[in-house]
C-alpha cells in the first residue's frame, strides 16, 4: 500500500530556560489511506508533539523542527515541515484534519454549531451562508446527531460530551480530508459513549477512505481499532509493528511492561499487577544510552553495559516489526514468558 503520509526523522525540540526539551526525537512512520496507525505512549512521550508538527501547528519561534512530513497529494508530494506556513494552512482542513481530546475547549462557545461547521466548509467551497448551513446539517446527520435540522442552530454548551465530539468529527470531515489525526478523542468520555465514538470513527474512515492516526494512552482502545502501532517513550519510537505482533509478540521491554501493568476486565483471577518501577526521565536531561534503562528489568542481561552507554537503534528484527532494544531475540523470548508467568 502506498503511504499517504510519510514522516521521516522528525525531531521537535523546545528551547527553555532550563535547557533544550527534546520532545520528539528522530520519529519516522508512514500511514496509508484506509489504514489506522495508533501512536501509544504516556504523558510526555512525544505523541502529541509529533502530530502537531505534522499539522504545522507549532509556533516556529518556540519550536525547533527538523525532518520531513511528506503528504502524497494528487498534485504531488508536499513536505509540511519545509513548506511555508501559508501553504500548510491551505492543507489543513482539506487534506489533513485533527480532532482533540476536549471538544468543549476546541469549539467556540459564542457561535452556533452550524456557523462553525459552515465556516470550515466555506474555506474551500464557494456558496452562500445557507449552503454552508445545509452542508453542516448533512454532516451532523452523517455523524449521528438526532434532529440535525434543529441542533445545527444550537450552541456547544447545549451538547453533551459525546455529542460535542461528534460535532468535532463533523467539522473535521466537512471538506473530506485524506488524513485525520485524532488526539485522545475518547479520553474524556464515558465508556458507553467511547464505544459509540470509536464505531463512528471507523465508519467515517470507510466512508471517506481516510488515513487515521489515533493518538492514545489506552491500550484497550488501540487493540480495538488500530492496524499498526507505534509505541513511544521519552520522545522516541521504541517499537513499531502490526497490531497482533504488538499484543502477542511484543519486542520491547517497555511494551511488555505496559501490557502487564494494566488490569483487564476479561481476567477475573486476582493476579497482582506488574507495575513498571520508577518514572519516565526528564526530556531536558535524557540519560546516556537507552532512555528506558533505569526502569528496565532486563538491561543487566546485555553484555558490556551497552544499555547505559549506547542508544539502541530502531532495528527491523522481523519483517515490519521494529524495536529499539539491545536484547537478542532469545533473551526477549525469555523476557516475554517470564513477564507472562509471574
Amino acid at each position: 500500500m502506498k503511504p499517504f503520509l510519510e514522516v521521516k526523522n522528525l525531531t521537535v525540540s523546545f528551547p527553555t530556560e532550563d535547557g533544550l526539551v527534546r520532545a520528539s526525537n528522530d520519529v519516522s512512520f508512514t500511514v496509508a489511506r484506509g489504514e489506522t496507525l495508533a501512536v501509544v505512549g504516556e504523558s510526555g512521550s512525544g505523541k502529541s508533539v509529533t502530530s502537531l508538527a505534522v499539522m504545522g501547528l507549532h509556533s516556529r519561534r518556540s519550536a525547533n523542527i527538523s525532518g520531513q512530513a511528506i503528504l502524497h497529494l494528487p498534485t504531488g508530494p508536499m513536505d509540511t515541515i519545509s513548506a511555508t506556513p501559508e501553504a500548510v494552512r491551505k492543507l489543513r482542513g482539506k487534506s489533513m484534519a485533527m480532532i482533540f481530546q476536549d471538544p468543549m475547549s476546541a469549539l467556540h462557545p459564542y457561535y452556533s454549531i452550524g456557523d462553525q461547521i459552515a465556516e470550515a466548509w466555506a474555506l474551500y467551497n464557494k456558496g452562500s451562508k445557507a449552503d454552508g448551513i445545509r452542508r453542516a446539517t448533512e454532516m451532523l446527520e452523517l455523524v449521528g446527531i438526532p434532529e440535525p435540522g434543529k441542533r445545527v442552530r444550537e450552541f456547544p454548551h447545549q451538547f453533551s460530551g459525546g455529542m460535542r465530539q461528534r460535532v468535532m468529527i463533523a467539522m473535521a470531515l466537512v471538506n473530506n480530508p485524506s488524513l485525520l489525526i485524532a488526539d485522545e478523542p475518547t479520553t474524556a468520555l464515558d465508556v458507553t459513549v467511547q464505544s459509540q465514538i470509536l464505531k463512528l470513527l471507523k465508519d467515517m474512515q470507510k466512508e471517506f477512505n481516510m488515513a487515521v492516526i489515533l493518538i492514545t494512552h489506552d491500550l484497550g482502545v488501540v487493540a480495538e481499532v488500530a492496524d499498526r502501532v507505534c509505541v513511544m517513550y521519552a520522545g522516541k519510537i521504541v517499537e513499531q509493528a502490526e497490531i497482533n505482533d504488538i499484543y502477542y509478540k511484543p519486542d520491547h521491554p517497555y511494551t511488555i511492561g505496559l501490557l502487564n501493568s494494566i488490569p483487564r476486565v476479561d481476567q477475573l483471577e486476582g493476579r497482582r499487577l506488574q507495575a513498571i518501577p520508577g518514572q519516565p526521565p526528564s526530556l531536558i536531561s535524557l540519560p546516556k544510552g537507552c532512555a528506558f534503562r533505569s526502569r528496565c528489568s532486563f538491561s543487566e542481561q546485555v553484555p558490556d553495559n551497552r544499555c547505559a552507554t549506547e542508544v539502541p537503534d530502531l532495528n527491523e528484527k522481523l519483517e515490519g516489526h521494529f524495536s529499539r532494544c539491545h536484547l537478542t531475540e532469545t533473551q526477549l523470548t525469555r523476557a516475554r514468558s517470564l513477564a507472562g508467568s509471574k
Partner: protein
Amino acid sequence: MSQPVLKLEGLKKHFESTSGGIFNKKKGVVKAVDGVDLEIFPGETVGLVGESGSGKTTVGRTVLKLYEPTEGKIIFEGNDITGLTRKQMKPLRSQMQMIFQDPFASLNPRQTVGALIGATFEIQKITPPGGVEAEIARLMERVGLNPEHVNRYPHEFSGGQRQRIGVARAIALKPKLIVADEPVSALDVSIQAQVVNLLDDLQQEFNLSYLFVAHDLSVVQHISDKVIVMYLGKVMEQANKIDLFRSPRHPYTKALLSAVPVPDPIKGRARERIILEGDLPSPMNPPAGCVFNTRCWKVQDKCRIEVPELLQIAPGQSLACHFPEPAVPAI
C-alpha cells in the same frame, strides 16, 4: 460474621437547583443519590461504578458527611452518624479518610510534604509514638517516597508521587475506612499499577476497608470484592465481583461491561458488543419508570411505567430490573 465498618440504609442526597437570580427561585431537585444500601466489612473493598452523573462521587462524599444526607442512615461501626454535627464528627474523622482524584488540586501548593502529612496529627491533637517527625518519615517510606524529600513542595513531585502523598495523608491516623474517589484515573498507565498495588498492600497490612469510586471498570474489577453499579442516582445491580463480571444480570451492567475495551486485538474484536444509544438523561428530569429505560436495549412498556425495585436475587446479589438477563452458570 463481624460487624460492617460502614452500612448505608436507603441513603439519599438531593440537591435543590435554584435559578441563581435575586429571588433565587427554586428550579427543581436533582436526585443525585436516590436510595443506596451497602455494607462494607473490615478488609473489604466495595467498588462503586457508573458513568458521569450516576451519583457515585456524591455517595462517597455523603458517607464522609461532606454533604448532609437528605434521607437514610449512615452507620459507622454500629453507630448511627447520620445526624452528627461537624463538631461531633471530628473525632471520627481519624477513622474515615478520603483520597481524591486530582493529586494536583488536592494538595496545598504552599505547604511542604512534611507539613501536609503532619497536619493530620495536629488537627486531631495526636502525638504518634516516636514523635511526629519520625512518623512522617516512616509514612513517606511506607508509601514509596524518599523521606529526605520531606521539605519539598507538591510541584516538585510527579503525578504518581503526589498521589502517594495523598495516600500517606489518608493512612496517617490508621483509619478503618478510606473513600477513594477515582484515585488512579489521572495517572499514566505504568504509574497507575504502582498506586493500585500500593493500595492493595496497605489494605492487607492494616485490614483497611475501601469504598472505591471509579469509572474504569478494569481497575474496579481488579481491586474490588463487591461491586455496585449505579445509574442516575440509583443502584442497578450489586453483586460480588466474580458474579458481576462473569454473569451480569442487569442490561445496563451487561452493556457497560461490553463497552470496556480489552487489550487483546483478536479477543476484543470478536466480543459481542452492546452499543447504548444516546447519553445519560438529565438528572433534573429523570425518565418515568426505570431510569435506564431511554437507553435500554431490552426496554418494554412496563419499564416506562413501573419503577423496578432493587430485589435480592441470591445471597449478596441484588438487581433492579423487570427483565433481567439469565444467569450464566458457573463452569
